[in-house]
């Protein structure tokens, strides 16, 4: 396992050129010649910069490059129903500095180096085998939601640093689930980033769709028990910087889970359209809406049939979370 031991200081040094080149080169450019000093007159660009609607593309204050997080956004393909097939995943806990907002770094505990961790996917009846190695500096576990024996629950089998444990059980029931570390202090282990999405496909395959995974994340970078930044699948404003391209002709299916710590609830709101929301996704029951509310651990499946092409915003319908990073766009094309 790659074991990154990046000290805070070294990271700062590495980040310095990037930070220096930021934070608003683009805005400064657009504001033009008179931007440098006081007494500047208001230009159209300055006006635009005051609303989040304008924070799209390169104007969005998000870290990272394009496609960097595709492995978290696009789940592995669903496989057909074949009871007893073995689905293996290797997951390692790794301590790592990650950039959670433009120019801001967080000492995270991660599964496989990212927050959230990798998407684990199986079909109902598959024998799921998750080999877990603790490459971090604290005892960790993986607690997967779903139906499984007590000794596979990731609560009592604490995995010490350097040790390993294999979770093995038949995957069921189908639906959108999640996994997270269950070591104590629980709040700390989740807030540090040890969680991810766990999809179990039904025996009867779901209709073809453009599938996406969205794990709602929050980061408390100064340790005061309140999140400083929010996002989808990690960094603040990432999908505002890189809108998600989808086709209007095909259903968009989002596997949604809320794993933000500290805040009682989080939510998902889509602009300009409605969607079917299947709570937990284990039954056919759905709600037709444009806003859903989730407490920590709550999750479900969203299916959108876009009526129009264009740019549609999606965000938490808690304005505070929206303005602290939990906001993105769909680019709907024909």
């Amino acid at each position: 396992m790659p074991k990154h031991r990046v000290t805070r200081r070294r990271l700062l040094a590495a980040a310095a050129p990037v930070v220096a080149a930021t934070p608003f080169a683009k805005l400064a450019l657009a504001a033009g010649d008179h931007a440098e000093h006081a007494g500047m007159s208001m230009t159209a660009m300055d006006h635009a910069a005051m609303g989040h609607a304008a924070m799209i593309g390169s104007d969005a204050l998000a870290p990272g490059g394009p496609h960097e997080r595709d492995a978290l956004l696009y789940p592995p393909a669903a496989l057909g129903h074949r009871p007893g097939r073995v689905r293996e995943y290797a997951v390692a806990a790794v301590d790592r500095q990650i950039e959670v907002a433009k120019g801001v770094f967080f000492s995270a505990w991660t599964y496989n180096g990212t927050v959230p961790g990798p998407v684990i996917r199986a079909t109902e009846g598959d024998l799921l085998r998750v080999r877990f190695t603790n490459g971090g500096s604290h005892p960790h576990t993986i607690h997967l939601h779903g139906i499984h024996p007590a000794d596979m629950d990731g609560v009592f089998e604490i995995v010490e640093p350097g040790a390993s444990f294999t979770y093995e059980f038949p995957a069921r029931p189908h639906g959108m689930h999640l996994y997270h570390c269950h070591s104590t202090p629980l709040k700390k282990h989740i807030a540090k980033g040890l969680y991810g999405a766990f999809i179990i496909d039904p025996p009867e395959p779901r209709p073809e769709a453009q599938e996406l995974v969205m794990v709602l994340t929050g980061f408390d970078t100064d340790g005061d028990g309140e999140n400083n930044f929010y996002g989808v699948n990690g960094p603040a404003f990432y999908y505002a910087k890189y809108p998600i391209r989808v086709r209007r002709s095909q259903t968009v299916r989002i596997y949604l889970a809320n794993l933000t710590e500290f805040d009682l609830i989080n939510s998902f709101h889509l602009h300009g359209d409605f969607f079917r929301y299947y709570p937990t996704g284990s039954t056919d029951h759905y709600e037709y809406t444009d806003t859903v509310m989730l407490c920590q651990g709550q999750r479900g499946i969203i299916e959108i049939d876009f009526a129009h092409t264009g740019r549609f915003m999606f965000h938490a319908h808690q304005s505070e979370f929206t303005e602290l990073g939990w906001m993105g766009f769909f680019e709907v094309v024909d």
Partner: protein
Amino acid sequence: MEAGSAAGWNRGPLRAWRLWALMPILLLVGTVAVFVSTGSSLLDLVGRAPPPRDEFDIRRVEFKPGEIRIRVTNPQREELAIGTVTVDDAIVPFRLDGPSSLGRLRSSTIVVPYHWVEDDPYTVGVTSSSGIETSFAVPAAVESRGASPRGFLGYALIGLLVGIVPVALGLAWLPSLRRADARWLASFMALTAGLLTFLAFDALGEALQLQAALPSGFQGTGLILLGVAASYLGLTFVAQRASATARQERSAPLEGAALAGLIAAGIGLHNLGEGLAIGTSIALGELALGTFFIVGFMVHNITEGLGIATPIASGGRVGLPRLGALALIAGAPAIVGAWIGGFITSDLLGVLFFALAVGAALQVVVEIGRYVARKAPGGLSSGHVVGGYLAGIVVMYATGLLVG
């Protein structure tokens, strides 16, 4: 040739001695170099340093049409980089006047385009690259005016009203003072000493309060000591020179117009700090700038004019230009202070100015004491002097109530 070589021979040992004097410094440099190259392993023996606090020092938040300007300083030894900026818990785009990664005690201004609402409270937050957020609450957003001819004139008028005018009015007590008998004159001198003592304490309090808010790297208390010592000793030097030229006698106490000049200088330094405090408060929108405030300062400061007039009363005639000059020395620094405070806002300068005022006021108190001890009937312990001194403090306290 002979002389040259003799001089060279003489200079030889001298040079050697000088080199010898450099030895401790060279050894120190060597030791430091060895420690720096191996020091971290040495420190590991006794523990581990905690990570830096990574908090910014936010000195000033200004509201301009369509933008908010946040002045941040790095108060710590380690480099500190600006990551994100929030206004009322919302991440906002910004640009920088200055570097984004700040060395020790370096500053930058964060400019946030923003439609702020007049009189609303705002909380701005600056998050370091290490994720630590420093926030600064503004109780009510008020537009801060930049340097403009209007502002320049405005601060000058305020300085004029709280500085020069009351001092000049106080000087008008001169004819009445001239008719007072020696005991009462001594009493007024003591009153002057009392009010100057009050000003010294007042300035010391301001300086201590201001320095507490400074990043520790600026060593505010040391700065205060420096300011007090510099102004006290500086004025002592000036007083000695003045008395030596006037009476060919080094240790004689100053009197008459010369003593009045010294008092005016001391009061002037105090008014410099006072002007700075007023200017800063206005610029930051912290001051309920009312007529009552200005009137209060005028009543408070008229006593300063009395203090300058008293020593003149016992001396020879002094012309109107000379009196005008004294009023300017004592009062004009209030204008300069208001300009500096209004347009620059530096707590560091504030600390220094107030410290200078402390030293100056104390030196003048000592000078007056020497004068009274020698010239006044009954010396320092007469009832007129003791009563006058206490009255000076009471007068300042009572008129100060108008300002506070």
